[in-house]
């Protein structure tokens, strides 16, 4: 009867080891997904960061993009960004593609600590307005001290069409940078 032990043990292992499977958790929280943004209470048109969270180490840089989400007939924008200047410093800032044309305006001011003011608009006649979701600017921060810091939009930010009619910004996302 000893011969039966091996197949018996194998059968028991087979049953015990049966992969019952797990259902992974889905994370549908892409900041550029209007459905996900709406679930988070960010209604369009909105200003969001992509990615909305990032990790870095002290002295290293981390990139964040400024995005206009679900906007209609955008011609110009004033974007005011606040960040914790005790933890982060602005390394570089570059214009995004959304309002980019042969002759566009892109100005920024970082003279006030922890505040970035961006002014951008079309100046040429090849494009006057854009709609949808698009990149407004590229930001690169450098982590100074360890900790989690937020990058937020000020509600003073403004969207306007080519005739300077204001477009109400209904949602503001925020970015989180975790410096180790």
């Amino acid at each position, binding site marked *: *009867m000893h011969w*039966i032990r091996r*197949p*018996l043990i*194998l*059968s*028991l292992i087979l*049953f015990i080891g*049966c*992969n*019952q*499977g*797990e*259902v*992974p958790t*889905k*994370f*549908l929280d*892409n900041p*550029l*997904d*209007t*459905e*996900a943004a709406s679930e988070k209470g960010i209604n369009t048109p909105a200003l969001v960061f*992509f990615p909305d969270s990032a990790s870095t180490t002290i002295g290293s840089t981390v990139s964040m993009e400024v995005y206009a989400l679900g906007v209609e007939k955008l011609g110009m924008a004033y974007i005011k960004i606040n960040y914790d200047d005790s933890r982060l410093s602005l390394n570089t800032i570059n214009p995004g593609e959304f309002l980019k044309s042969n002759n566009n305006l892109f100005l920024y001011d970082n003279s006030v600590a922890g505040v970035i003011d961006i002014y951008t608009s079309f100046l040429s006649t090849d494009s006057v307005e854009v709609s*949808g*979701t698009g*990149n407004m600017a590229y930001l690169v921060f450098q982590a100074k001290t360890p900790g989690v810091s937020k990058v937020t939009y000020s509600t003073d930010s403004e969207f306007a069409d080519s005739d300077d009619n204001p477009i109400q910004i209904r949602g503001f996302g925020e970015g989180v940078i975790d410096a180790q």
Partner: protein
Amino acid sequence: MKYNRHLIAVLICLLSVNSPNAQSTSNKSTLAVLDFEGRGINSLEAATLTDRFTSEIGKTESMVLVDRTMVEEILKEQGFQQSGCTTDECAVEVGAMLGVQFMISGAIGKLGDTFTIDAKMVSVESGASVETRNVTYIGKVDGLVTEIELLAWDIMNLEPPEALKEKKRLGAQAFLAAQAKQKTRTGALLRSMAVPGFGQYYAGKKLMAAGYLVSELAVLGLYASANSAYTTATDDFNNYQNLYNTEKDPVMIADYRSKVNSSHDDIQSNKDLMNQMATAAIGIWAINAVHAFLIKPDNVTASKESPIKLAYDPKTLSPQLRFSIALD
């Protein structure tokens, strides 16, 4: 495990109000056995065969058997060797001293390859022969053991057990070999636990064995299919989840979102199917194991008679309806 074990034997008397079949030990007749006289065989062989005969008489449980040492003591007191007490008168005399109601004496003779056994049951009270049996046997001496065992049941007017009949039919050596390979419930259980249906196959229920095996394999096949689909869906999910997280194009984001949801639903449905199949597989496995334990293995020596039998008991002169449940 190597031996049959009849755990329950129920005798119910019907059609007879005064059947004493269920009498208590105190109501049973008493009996003593004298050593059979050896004629052509030595006294040691005769004593060995008498031992076996006495032992088998005890198994019949129809009379209270007096211990042979007591018989020997009486014979010694009276100046007999057991083999010296061969007449009915001597048997009656010894029986009276022992206080038994019946005595059995006999002789075992050998002529060439032919053996003869003569046995006689004498009433101590009347001195008359109550039962007389003669057996002639041709063959090896080991077969004589079976003959004398059968004789014990016969002289008590009882039907010998099926195993004993089978032993006579197969021969002692073949019977013992068959007993050594006795199929057991535990053997069937362990086999079925190892491989579904194997216990049933072992027990001789080949159709059931095939049924369990095919059912188990079918369920495991469905499980494997669901597991494969689950793995594919999980890979798709992880892939689409990564694409969704890094995508910047709103159209593609919506597309990946849809695919993440779809693959997630696939994972859930296949996981549910896997759980159902695993439960079914374990269920079939458990039922198969329990069933293998409950069914009676087809043994060579196992009783093939119906569990309900109408028999006539000549001792009580009454018919009996006999139930027997073998739990071996």
